[in-house]
């Protein structure tokens, strides 16, 4: 019985000028994990390493409990992938796309695909290049669903899409994990999408792992601290990430353990956005 559908242990990858450093995470069966971080943080790199589109320097990656390189082909039969831009030939029709993608799957379900086309309102005869960005994303999703994928890996699937589609997308994801037998890894910089729906979250900043674990745990670990200029002691300033000073005072992110020392300031719950913004402004805590 495999509990974790996806597991990364101390994964490292170096490029000139960037290093993905000791990334670890665990995604159990039946849940949604958000992979969050500012642009350039290393989210796409992490996904490419999981899919072996890039070779890791050190570390281990397990998908469905199996090594992601040694069992690459078996694993990929059960993994569905959606990227931020379409990766099918633009002159293919929707029907052609099915013909092309189904070449690779033993277990292709044509009726599921047709069902998805109906549900997403995708006309069979329309060419890929004639589809809107939202429709292209739905096409990638339809293909991912049609071979019984147990793990869905999504790299910024909703970037550039309007809130209505993003909302519909989240509903589709929740429907997808409803039987408890499938998981989703969802990388995005639109954190509001994740805030309520993601069970687990991994935060990456500048190649470093900032947090991985339950969503609740993350929100509980940080506070947004606001106060008057005079309350900003040297000691407090050191504990704050992403400090912002104005004429009205200051605000920033502070760890929960430190926050309790500063009851004289306003302490609010931090949203993921707050955490990501403050992190990108100033250093990793």
């Amino acid at each position, binding site marked *: 019985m495999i509990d974790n559908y996806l597991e990364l242990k101390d994964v490292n990858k170096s490029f000139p000028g960037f290093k993905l450093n000791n990334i670890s995470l665990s995604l159990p069966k*039946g*849940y949604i994990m958000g992979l969050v971080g500012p642009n350039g943080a290393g989210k796409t790199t992490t996904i490419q390493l999981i899919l072996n589109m890039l070779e890791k320097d050190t570390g281990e990656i397990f998908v469905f409990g199996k090594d992601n390189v040694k069992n690459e082909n078996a694993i990929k039969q059960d993994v569905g992938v959606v990227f931020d831009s379409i990766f099918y030939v633009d002159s293919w029709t929707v029907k052609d796309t099915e013909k092309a993608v189904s070449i690779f799957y033993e277990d292709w379900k044509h009726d599921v695909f047709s069902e998805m086309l109906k549900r997403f309102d995708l006309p069979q005869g329309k060419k890929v290049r004639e589809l809107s960005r939202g429709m292209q994303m739905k096409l990638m999703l339809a293909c991912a669903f049609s071979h019984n994928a147990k793990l869905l890996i999504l790299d910024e699937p909703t970037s550039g899409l309007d809130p209505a589609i993003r909302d519909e997308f989240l*509903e589709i994801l*929740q429907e997808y994990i*409803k039987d408890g037998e499938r998981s989703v890894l969802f990388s995005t910089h639109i954190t509001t999408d994740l805030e*309520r*729906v*993601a*069970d687990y979250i991994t935060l990456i900043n500048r190649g470093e792992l900032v947090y991985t674990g*339950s969503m609740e745990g993350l929100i509980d670990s940080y506070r947004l601290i606001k106060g008057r200029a005079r309350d900003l002691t040297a000691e407090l300033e050191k504990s704050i990430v992403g400090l912002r000073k104005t004429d009205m005072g200051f605000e920033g992110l502070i760890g929960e353990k430190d926050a309790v020392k500063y009851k004289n300031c306003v302490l609010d719950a931090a949203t993921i956005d707050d955490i990501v913004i403050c992190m990108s402004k100033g250093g990793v805590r």
Partner: protein
Amino acid sequence: MEIVISNSSSSPIYAQIKEQVKAQILSGELVEDEMLPSLRQLAKDLKISVLTTTRAYNELEQEGFITSRQGKGFFVMSSSSNLIREQLIKEVENNLNNAIQAAQRASMSDDEIISLLRLLLEVKND
């Protein structure tokens, strides 16, 4: 079972779910042995994470309001409305103790306390 979540409430979502379930048990909207929506269905309907609903249900189970039956789901416990009533009575007791302490600091006599209580109950019942 109908639950409404407020995002701007200071109370975390799992706590809101707990409170509403308890309230519905007490008011009779949820009856003994009634099956609650599954963890995942609830998460999907409320558009929240499965871990959140799991926490709410687990805590409700620990506190004795609901019980989980293997392979079937979560059900309202038969003694739950009594449990809630007991909890509420405890709350009344605590509040009354606090009131009595404050009254004593204000140098109120026992009779004064009782008349004040009667007055307040009359106003409430109008």
